[in-house]
């Protein structure tokens, strides 16, 4: 059974323009599945609705119509214990590492907040020990615990974000453009970290990006979105070698130099 089943979800917002109320459809009838252990790449330019799809899977946004199931549970109607279980199964890593960390919390608090919420019985010593293990996994030193987010670089902050996402040992990580706010070299380190973590923990990824080569490098399958619609989906290699849609070809052609690099890494 697929870990994530998205069945013809649509999300539209009402927008008031003067006296008229307009309906704007951000995601239009999108269906996709994510199998355990795979990486599904979701590409498309800004405004294509990728992030909204991610937020609907996370349960942060309710679909206007259609259903999202994670592990067989309907995300939009899950409550209480069911919702809590879903939280343990999937966690997000957001695009902007500067905005995703509460500036008034120390790293220890940030990384152990999942325990404070889900394991209230856990003592401070146990939490501290867990935090050290988590930071080690993402390549950060214990000394980071007592510091505040602004003291870190973008790449280090994204590592803190990943550490927090891993705290509850989720099966699924929703990676919403996790490297697009970073320098290329720093982004590459994060991408490699994500690959290592996936191998070690058997994680499933939904990897959202606007960069075709990056998605190709990481993904087993790729889904392409254009203005709210899913236009093409298929095995990563096949889709990149023989794109059926003109839009996919455009995306592939938009970053020719990086494509070379992506192929280089593949070999």
């Amino acid at each position, binding site marked *: 059974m697929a870990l994530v089943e998205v069945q013809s979800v649509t999300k539209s917002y009402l927008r008031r323009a003067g006296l008229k109320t307009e309906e704007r459809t951000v995601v239009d009838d999108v269906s996709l599945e994510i199998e355990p252990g795979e990486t599904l790449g979701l590409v498309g330019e800004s405004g294509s609705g990728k992030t909204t799809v991610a*937020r609907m899977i996370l349960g*942060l946004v309710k679909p206007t119509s259609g259903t999202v199931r994670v592990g067989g549970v309907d995300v939009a109607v899950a409550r209480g214990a069911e919702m809590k279980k879903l939280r343990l199964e999937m966690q*997000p890593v*957001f695009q902007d590492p500067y905005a*995703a960390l*509460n500036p*008034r919390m120390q790293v220890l608090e940030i990384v152990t907040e999942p325990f404070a*919420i889900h394991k209230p019985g856990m003592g401070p010593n146990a939490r501290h020990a867990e935090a050290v293990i988590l930071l080690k996994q993402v390549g950060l030193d214990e000394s980071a615990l007592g510091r505040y987010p602004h003291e870190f670089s973008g790449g280090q902050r994204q590592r803190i974000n990943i550490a*927090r996402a891993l705290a509850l040992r989720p099966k699924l990580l929703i990676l919403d453009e996790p490297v697009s706010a970073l320098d290329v070299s720093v982004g590459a380190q994060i991408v490699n970290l994500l690959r290592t973590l996936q191998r070690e923990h058997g994680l499933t990824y939904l990897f959202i990006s606007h960069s075709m080569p990056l998605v190709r490098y990481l993904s087993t399958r790729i889904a392409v979105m254009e203005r709210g619609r899913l236009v093409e989906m298929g095995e990563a290699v096949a889709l990149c070698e023989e794109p059926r849609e003109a839009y996919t070809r455009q995306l592939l052609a938009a970053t020719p130099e990086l494509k070379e690099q992506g192929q280089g890494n593949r070999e």
Partner: protein
Amino acid sequence: MGFAGQAWERVRKQPLAAVGVTLLALFVLGGLLAPWLSHYNPAAIDLAHRLQGPSPAHWAGTDELGRDTLARLLWGARLSLAVSVTVVGASLALGIAIGGLAGYRGGWVDTALTTFAMNTFLALPGILLAIAFAAFLGPGFLNLVLALAVGGWAGYARLVRAQVMAVRDREYVDAARALGASGMRIFFRHILPNILQPILVQAAIGMAGVILAEATLSFLGLGLPAPTPSWGAMLNDARSHLFDSPHLVLFPAAAVAGAVLGFNFLGDALRDRLDPRTRLEMGL
């Protein structure tokens, strides 16, 4: 650079803040230490020495009943301090609760709270509301606080609502939501700490407003009952001796002005510290 050097550096960069802090220190220390700073009882009548000018025995003179003005000023500071802290605290609590709920929930909750609760109170002049409530409730400390808080909370609620709306959709709030944090946890751990600074600025300036409003109510005879020393009541008592004993007007008026200025300067200084444009100039 030593501590004194650092302190001087701060004073040089924000001279008004230093003035404000000094005024507030005088006000707060005077109010807290009133019984130890003056051995006169502020309510003790001494008709043999009425309407005296400043002298070594009575540094700020005596009023028409022979009461020591300095003692009454210090005890008046104590009252102002107690009233302003309680009123701002109560208004702030109500403002955070209502403004927070409106901003965090949005939708019809926001519409109901903003249009019907906040805007109604914001449309009425605060001092008029306070006068009406004080006259209606009668004298007493709690009634005074209530009367002033009734007019004050809506301003904080509006500010809190706007700030919450600005922070509510930040990614760290989404991250907490995705972790399954409760609404309370998100509000008190993730939203409130990040909007506290502008609220503190408003609270500092609000303290000045409450001191002024308390003095106004006391001046009108709607404050605490007679023997209680209050700056507004002192000014009212002094009206009939404006020309023969001007010090009776001068000292309480200066006290009100000083405390109000102090809080305003402090509020401005806090705001300057928060404003990123001025932060650069200050080399932060």
